[in-house]
């Protein structure tokens, strides 16, 4: 047995675990050589990894409130960094991002920048102060800072809207993977994936989720690096893809010329014809801003910094979080470049008759993520070919090849002809990414409903047992609703995730920042800030997405319309001032700040008690002096 218990031996425990996982992967590789069929290898990867997460969940089950909500505040900075990394990197990062880089080229880098730079804001503006504040949830802060249940309730509304949008996208990601590797329909796969999510968070709350997320981080980073390291070694002879893909970019640019691609992979802010567009630049910068500010506002991330033992460790922990996230994010553009190079150099120009089997596997009915649309009746085999007219010459042209963004990462090992064990590994990694984020999000939602709504607002006398049972029941209900929505709207991840960031950014950022950094700001300002920011964001989100033509009729020439495919439906989406609605937070964030600053400036300033409270959370040492109603 280990001396000194689990927390004293974290390095040893996770070291053995990592070694075990690598050994397991090699074993599967040997089974493949021995002729075990592919689908069985896929089963192994999916069920064994879910089994490990379930085991950790069972081992860390808890009946203590502080363990359930904030992992007992015992998570060291380094491991909290890893857990945050897994919490953070979702299906969108793992499966979606390299895909959008594959298509967008330079423009896709907005995601890479936006999803890393936000941590600087978390580090300097939020994390240490929220840790010092030392309660359980983000709405707790709004209640303590802006005087009671009204701001608390508003923060819960924003939290639930943002997190639910986000979690739907995660379950969609789980659905894609389980559907492909277990060979079941997408809708059913969403519910199978749900089981993997629930075994963990349901039993042990934040404690179980934290230690599972560390395990999931290890799997997802190995899974992300392995295929692209092998590809780099194959193509360039050096197994450091992050450095070698510079050369691959040059090869892609050369192939673009022969294939007649107008918009170069590396060209910034180019329209379809390859010309510079200032509007594309503003969209790029707006998206970065929304993603960064959203990072610093999403409760499932902020609550991770409630779990460290000290303020000092909360700060260090942000650095480690970003470091672990960085490892994946600076690899993603390399992943996209190698995938594009493989498709351009070895797939395009092949006879349709001799296409590799992965094209059919990924293109089949019910998954429909790849299409080879040469023949006139190609749509019968590849639903993705709908609307694409091939020239039926028996050769695959670039314009006849279709691949969904979400399939790029998962299919790359097969595209490059790597052994199936690598595909299984990548699937396990994608699953780990989606499950870990879904766990964190569901917990954030369930905690907000059980702690903030039920315990703080409805029944403050509820005992521990009752609170934890309520939380678990709510977790289950929210999870089932999310899975149902995911199964219904289909498998498109990135735009949903971007909305979640915009919603959180518009609703919570101003309140958090000004709450900590502007002592004088009164209660009314905080409340109106949330209402205005969230309101503006939701107004533009709903009208641009669902009432595009109406918005155009109101705003006239300030709005352009464009037909977009969302899952299975096509909608006329509005672009106010030419801004894509994935950056809809750009309307909400400034609104929140302006309203909160105006009301704060002209309204009644915060009470002396409140200002003492803020001063007490600005300094790491000493007591937190709660103000107003919450004063014990």
């Amino acid at each position, binding site marked *: 047995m280990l001396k000194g218990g689990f927390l004293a031996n974290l390095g040893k425990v996770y070291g053995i675990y990592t070694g075990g996982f690598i050994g397991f992967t090699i074993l599967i590789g040997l089974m493949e050589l021995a002729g075990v069929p592919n689908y069985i290898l896929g089963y192994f990867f999916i069920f064994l990894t879910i089994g490990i997460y379930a085991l950790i969940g069972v081992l860390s089950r808890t009946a203590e409130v502080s363990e359930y909500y904030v992992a007992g505040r015992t998570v060291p900075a380094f491991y909290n960094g890893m857990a945050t990394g897994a919490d953070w990197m979702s299906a969108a990062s793992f499966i979606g991002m390299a895909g959008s880089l594959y298509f967008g080229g330079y423009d896709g880098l907005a995601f890479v920048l936006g999803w890393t730079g936000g941590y*600087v804001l978390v580090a300097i503006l939020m994390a240490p102060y929220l840790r010092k504040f030392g309660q359980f949830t983000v709405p707790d802060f709004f209640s303590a800072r802006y005087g009671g249940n009204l701001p608390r309730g508003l923060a819960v509304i924003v939290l639930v809207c943002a997190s639910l949008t986000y979690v739907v996208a995660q379950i969609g990601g789980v659905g894609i993977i389980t559907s492909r590797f277990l060979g079941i329909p997408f809708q059913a796969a969403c519910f199978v994936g749900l089981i993997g999510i629930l075994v963990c968070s349901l039993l042990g709350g934040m404690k179980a989720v934290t230690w599972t997320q560390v395990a999931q981080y290890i799997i997802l980073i190995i899974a992300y690096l392995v295929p692209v390291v092998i590809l780099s070694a194959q193509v360039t002879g050096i197994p450091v893809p*992050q450095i070698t893909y*510079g050369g*691959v970019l040059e090869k892609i640019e050369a192939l673009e010329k022969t294939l007649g691609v107008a918009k170069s992979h590396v*060209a910034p*802010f180019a329209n379809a014809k390859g010309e510079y567009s200032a509007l594309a630049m503003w969209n790029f910068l707006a998206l970065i801003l929304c993603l960064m500010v959203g990072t610093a506002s999403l409760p499932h991330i902020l609550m991770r910094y409630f779990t460290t033992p000290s303020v*000092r460790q909360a700060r260090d922990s*942000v650095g480690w979080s970003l470091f672990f996230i960085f490892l994946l994010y600076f690899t993603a553009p390399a992943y996209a470049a190698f995938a594009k190079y493989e498709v351009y150099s070895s797939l395009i120009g092949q006879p349709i008759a001799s296409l590799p089997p992965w094209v059919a596997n990924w293109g089949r009915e019910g998954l429909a993520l790849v299409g080879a649309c040469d023949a006139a009746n190609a749509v019968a085999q590849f639903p993705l070919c709908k609307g694409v007219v091939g020239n039926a010459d028996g050769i695959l042209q670039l314009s006849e090849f279709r691949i969904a963004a979400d399939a790029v990462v998962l299919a790359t090992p097969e595209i490059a002809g790597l052994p199936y064990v690598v595909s299984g590994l990548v699937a396990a990694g994608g699953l780990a990414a989606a499950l870990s984020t879904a766990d964190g999000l569901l917990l954030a939602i369930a905690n907000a409903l059980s702690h903030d709504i039920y315990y703080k607002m409805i029944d403050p006398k509820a005992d521990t047992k009752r609170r934890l049972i309520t939380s678990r029941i709510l977790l289950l209900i929210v999870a089932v609703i999310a899975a149902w929505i995911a199964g219904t709207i289909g498998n498109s991840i990135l735009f949903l995730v971007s909305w979640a960031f915009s919603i959180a950014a518009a609703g919570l950022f101003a309140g958090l920042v000004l709450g900590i950094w502007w002592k004088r700001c009164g209660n009314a300002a905080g409340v109106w800030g949330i209402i205005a920011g969230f309101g503006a964001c939701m107004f533009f989100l709903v009208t641009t997405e669902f009432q595009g033509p109406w918005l155009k009729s109101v705003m006239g020439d300030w709005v352009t319309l464009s037909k977009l495919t969302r899952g299975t439906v096509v909608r006329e989406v509005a672009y106010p001032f030419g801004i894509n609605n994935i950056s809809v937070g750009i309307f909400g964030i400034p609104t929140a700040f302006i309203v909160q600053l105006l009301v704060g400036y002209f309204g009644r300033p915060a009470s002396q008690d409140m200002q003492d409270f803020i001063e007490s959370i600005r300094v*790491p040492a*000493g007591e937190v002096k709660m103000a107003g109603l919450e004063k014990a």
Partner: protein
Amino acid sequence: MAATPHQPLSRERAQEYWGRTSKLMWTILVIWFVFGFLIHMFAPQLNSIRILGFPFGFYMAAQGSLIVFVFLCFWNAKAQNKIDEEFGVSDE
């Protein structure tokens, strides 16, 4: 940790502490803005420089700025810890 009782800072010291903390915050915020936004506005021009095959504008968005962000987070932790210790308000 909580074992040694903490002496609250005097009013002037508290103001000085927050002044130093705010200065660090603004410094990092400015660097963050330069590498998060400003530099990318010039990506088309920067792309004419090539290093190891990377167009430089592309490189900054794909890797360079990210390295700066990681550095900023660790630097913030280190510099703020130093301030905390100087004022005797570290919580460890």
